[in-house]
């Protein structure tokens, strides 16, 4: 291949510049070839472990499959999404419980990810400062994240218990509340309780990623800023924040992805009524509790579409550089 190109290219006599297609050099070609070789294992593994289950889910969303018998189903088009029988509308898109769960999820994501981002930056900035015991602090902030969600959700459920929960006890002792609050039973406070636990649990994730970004910043710009006598707050907004933005956005995107799929926290902490259900809780209920693989898959596909839409908007708004070009 390279030989042919080499020979053909020898008698170059200034061809029309505009019509020249870039003829990649050995270096570029070897880089591109290496890139594909490097990507191949990742792509193969992802195609293998994700491709089939995902394709299957999307396919099932157009069928009436039931968990009881997955081999016997019929293709029913968009009926799981929306359908009309005898003047009455059926399908997820007409189900108020679904839209309620969408709203719950989006609200939860917006609130918790915002709080986590701000707190995460603060924690990361503190951990980035040199002080004795910094290593220990790093370990400490990771503890909430290290406790399995299965456990920490139950733990908080216990701590938030209205009768013998330690949170109410503390607040009562501190005189902040007059009577115990029924944190998780009341749908008004339940989602806030979920947000609180989520913030407690995943701020370390944000903090650590932001910390890594901070650590990779060159130190001299800070020295320059110090010499110039710029106020630290200004330095943060004008220098630090723009520089860590790519990493910050990736952290936010992945947190948002997780938050939009929130399941265990809401499942364990709240009463699971329709008022507090998230999209994933809804999907799981259809899929597992009701054996409606078709409906559940449709809900999952809708979750995928909604998340994809939100992420694309985020990426566009944040102007994340994807492979050089701005999306």
């Amino acid at each position: 291949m390279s030989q042919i190109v080499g020979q053909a290219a020898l008698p170059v006599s200034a061809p029309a510049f505009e019509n020249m297609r870039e003829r990649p050099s050995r270096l570029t070609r070897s880089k591109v070839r290496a890139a594909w070789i490097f990507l191949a294992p990742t792509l193969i593994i992802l195609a293998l472990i994700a491709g089939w289950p995902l394709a299957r889910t999307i396919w099932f969303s157009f069928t009436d499959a039931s968990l009881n018998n997955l081999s016997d189903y019929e293709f029913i088009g968009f009926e799981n999404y929306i359908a009309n029988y005898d003047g009455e509308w059926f399908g997820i898109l007409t189900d108020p419980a679904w839209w309620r769960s969408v709203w719950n999820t989006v609200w939860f994501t917006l609130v918790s990810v915002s709080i986590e981002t701000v707190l995460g930056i603060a924690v990361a900035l503190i951990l980035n400062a040199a002080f004795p015991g910094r290593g220990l602090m790093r370990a400490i902030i990771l503890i909430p994240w290290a406790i399995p969600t299965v456990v920490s959700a139950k733990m908080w459920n216990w701590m938030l218990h209205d009768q013998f929960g330690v949170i109410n006890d503390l607040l009562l002792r501190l005189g902040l509340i007059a009577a115990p609050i029924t944190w998780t039973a009341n749908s008004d406070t339940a989602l806030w309780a979920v947000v609180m636990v989520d913030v407690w649990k995943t701020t370390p994730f944000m903090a650590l990623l932001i910390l890594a970004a901070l650590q990779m910043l060159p130190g001299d710009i800070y020295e320059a800023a110090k010499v110039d006598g710029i106020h630290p707050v200004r330095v943060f907004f004008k220098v630090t924040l723009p520089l860590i933005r790519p990493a910050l956005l990736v952290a936010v995107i992945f947190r948002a992805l997780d938050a939009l799929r929130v399941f265990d926290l809401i499942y364990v902490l709240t009463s699971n009524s329709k008022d507090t259900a998230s999209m994933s809780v809804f999907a799981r209920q259809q899929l597992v509790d009701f054996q409606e693989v078709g409906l559940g898959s449709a809900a999952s596909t809708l979750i995928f579409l909604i998340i994809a839409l939100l992420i694309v908007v985020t990426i566009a708004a944040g102007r994340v550089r994807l492979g050089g070009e701005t999306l």
Partner: protein
Amino acid sequence: MRRSSLASLAFVTGLAVTASAHAVEVSISCSALGQEYEICKQGVDAWAKKTGNNVKIVSTPNSATERLALYQQLLAANAPDIDVFQIDVVWSGILGQHFTDLTPKAGATIDQNFPSMIETSKVGGKLVAMPWFADAGLLYYRKDLLEKHKKPVPQTWAELSETAKAVQDAERQGGKGDFWGFVWQGRAYEGLTTNALEWIASNNGGTIVDAKGDITVENPKAAEALKLAAGWVGTITPEGALNYTEEESRGVFQAGNALFMRNWPYAWSLAQGGDSAIKDKVGIVPLPKGGADGRNAGTLGGQLLAVSRYSKNVDAATDLVLYLTGPEEQKRRAIQGSFNPTLPALFKDPEVTKANPFMGDLLTVFTNAVARPAAVTGDNYNKVSTEFFNAVHNVLSKKAEPDQALSRLDRDLKRIKRSGW
């Protein structure tokens, strides 16, 4: 492990024909750990010893919904990994098609069980599981406090409300600020269905869906029962109870902070445990009636044993199920683990009543127990139950009036039913 290698050794050495016919390995999912595991293991080992087979116990999630999800996953994939499944009474309709019909093998033993237990084990005329042990909702009360305040054990829900209110007020005045009258399971989950079904059934309000499959839940009796229950929240029941499961309510009760509790029989031995604040101060009775003309109705719970269609050793597995659900084993379990037998005869067995003095009283509870409409709604039971507990939860949290909630529930259930369950 060692056993199976012994078995294969036997195979190699030419004892093959006879040995392999017996030495199969059967795996059973019985409850995960602790005392229940021990008791299960003893029974299983006894059978293994008797038949020469191996039994592997597979532990499954403690939470009912997670366990059901796991079962569905395994069964939907036709996986032969578990031969014998321990299932909840309300799952027979959902999972029934994956299980073998035990009728021919079980034969006469079927009729020795509580009819309600057999009813719930049947799907489309086939016996898909054998009853293993029974459960039913009970009313726990504080003997000492009722005596102290000179109140009788309530016979109706109305009486319970009054007594609870009176004692609660008195106790609170006596300095126990966080004392409550009555705790139960109000979280929007299956437990609420069992609780609410007790209120409605005891008030002659039916069982949501009747045996013929007709939706009966929209009726004044049911609305009346829900109205009463909604009145408890915030007065004799903490608002937090709207997110309580069994353990949270037991927590409040066992800490001595409640007069009444609705719970399953399991709480008895714990409340009587050495470190319990209310040891020897607790009594249990059937749940109250809805009124003078009502009835005592505890929701029927309990577990069944079923044999997977995909099992490679259906015969051995069936044998194991029949052994475990047989009178001998049930008696042993009743004596050693306080598991309530599904065979009425055992409640009068002197050895059993000696070990569990309260068990004699439970016979009436079980005979009167009300079954959830699981068998009749089949696949759709979870949907029915979910709609039901969501509707009830709305009433309890004062988001809807009972009439209104029940009428909407009726509509939603009809929508689920459409052309039939």
